[in-house]
């Protein structure tokens, strides 16, 4: 076979690969949307679920999802950004950073069901007096540990891109290290950090396995962080599988549609931010 033929064939194969990837995606999304869109309407978005989710809407579940996501981020973001500041501004590569990095990487690799086991044993059972068992708080604490690695990594990258000259300028003007970090480094790194936060939202919104063991699964509107709740992903799973009748499946696909649209909006926002504020 001539070199040219090989080249042509390879090129064709790679185009096919690209095409396959898009085809697979369209297939999954198309299927879910096809089944789900007919059942998404205003009532579905604004009513509460009835008959175990097989009738009515998902309003409390949307609110729970937002509530849960906000709480998770509120817990994880300060820790993640703090860790990133420490790693980039306060230490040189050494034993301590090695330990921290190993911990972070190990955490990133832990399967979500193991986070679930841990969250169940620690937050739900051992810390019951504080978290009140299965609750938004238990779920959010579990979720926070899951997104920590992503937050640390993206924040670190963002902080690293801030030019050294900014810091030197600030320090030369007599600012303390902390002032420099707060007033110079963090504001410049903010877009990158926010992008990391948005990416973490994607993970939190899509998580199911760990939350089944920690969040409690209530369909009702949560009144406080000590109430049990369910996210859209959980609702989708529970309605499709625990109930399993035709109307329930319709509602499940409708929930999946809303979920995919949410993820799409989140991704688009992150991309838009990156394009407009980071370069």
């Amino acid at each position, binding site marked *: 076979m001539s070199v040219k033929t*090989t*080249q042509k064939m*390879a090129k064709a194969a*790679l*185009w096919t*690969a*690209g095409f*396959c*990837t*898009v085809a*697979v*995606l*369209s297939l*999954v999304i198309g*299927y*879910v949307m096809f089944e789900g869109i007919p059942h998404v309407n205003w009532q579905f978005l604004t009513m509460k679920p009835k008959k175990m989710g097989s009738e009515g809407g998902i309003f409390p579940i949307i609110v729970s999802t937002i509530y849960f996501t906000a709480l998770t981020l509120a817990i994880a973001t*300060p*820790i993640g950004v703090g*860790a990133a*500041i*420490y*790693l980039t501004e306060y230490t040189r590569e050494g034993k301590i950073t090695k330990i*921290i990095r*190993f*911990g972070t*990487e*190990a*955490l990133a*690799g*832990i*399967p*979500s*069901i*193991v*986070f*679930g*086991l*841990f969250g169940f*044993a*620690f937050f739900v059972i*051992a810390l019951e007096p504080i978290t009140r068992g299965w609750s938004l708080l238990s779920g959010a604490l579990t979720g926070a*540990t899951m997104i920590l690695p992503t937050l640390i990594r993206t924040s670190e990258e963002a902080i690293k891109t801030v030019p050294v000259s900014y810091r030197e300028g600030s320090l030369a003007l007599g600012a*303390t*290290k902390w002032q420099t970090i707060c007033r110079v480094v963090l504001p410049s790194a903010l877009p990158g950090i926010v992008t990391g936060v948005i990416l973490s939202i994607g993970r939190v*919104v899509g*998580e*199911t*396995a760990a939350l*089944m063991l920690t969040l409690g699964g209530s369909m009702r509107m949560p009144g406080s962080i000590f109430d049990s709740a369910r996210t859209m*992903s959980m609702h*989708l*799973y529970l309605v*499709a*599988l625990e109930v399993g009748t035709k109307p329930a499946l319709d509602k499940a696909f409708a929930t999946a549609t809303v*979920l*995919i649209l949410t*993820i*799409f909006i989140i*991704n688009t926002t992150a*991309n838009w931010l990156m394009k407009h504020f980071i370069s």
Partner: protein
Amino acid sequence: MNYKTKEKIYEKILLTSAFVSVITIILIGGFVFKEGAPLIAKVGLVKFLFGTQWFPTSGEYGIFPMILGTFAVTLVALAMGVPLGVSTAIFLAEFAPPKVTRVVRPAVELLAGIPSVVYGLFGMVIVNDIIMYVERTYLAGILKPEYQRGYSILSASIILAIMILPTVINISEDAIRSVPNEYKEASLALGATEWQTIYKVLLPAASSGIVAAVVLGMGRAIGETMAVIMVAGNTVAVPDSIFAPVRTLTGNIAIEMGYASGDHVRALFATGIVLFVIIMVLNSVATFIAKKGVSRS
């Protein structure tokens, strides 16, 4: 308080947040071991790891079929997902016109963000159906009847292969893009075709990044839970064909945790220990390979 003490305090706070992930990993290990280890001690490590009988309500705890199942599903998923993923990455980095990239990249990102339950539903309703049709129409004479039910290593792997695509594509693409342009130019200037350049120059230069992509994809495949339990059949039996139904380690925990009691719960935590150890070993291997790749280049 003078500013020096303040600075010290800030530093301590930051140090603490940096150690949260280390503390968490120790807590996770600690709690899972605390809950699961007594059962392993009671059953015996060898019997637990290599036993093939899993009847937790009657006191038999052997997870060997699940260990095999996890590896089987992961390897087959990698065999399908990695070639497609790396090819797509090459396509995106080298061939795709900007217009196409603008469609494919967000598509890949969306693929990464879709909750695993959605993949599971897709697999349960569509993929399993197709596999079952193939098994019963074309392979009916060859396969055992219990391997003609759709639920199989194959269908779980197909779903997992789709799920690891984004990881493999993103990281491989980064690795390929980070190969210095001079390498490519030099190769092309010497008269090599584009394909030869990719095959002989770009891929070897990007190999450590691609390995990292594969390892991360593998981690995701081993850890995936919800989608797998919906399509794998969850039969506890040593698989001997890709058409055999299997149960994975993660699946074992997720399926039975809801109703388990007493030693059964501890057995599921013990399954968690095995999973934890596998992931830790995998991570260390990945770190080792990444280091080796860096020191070589």
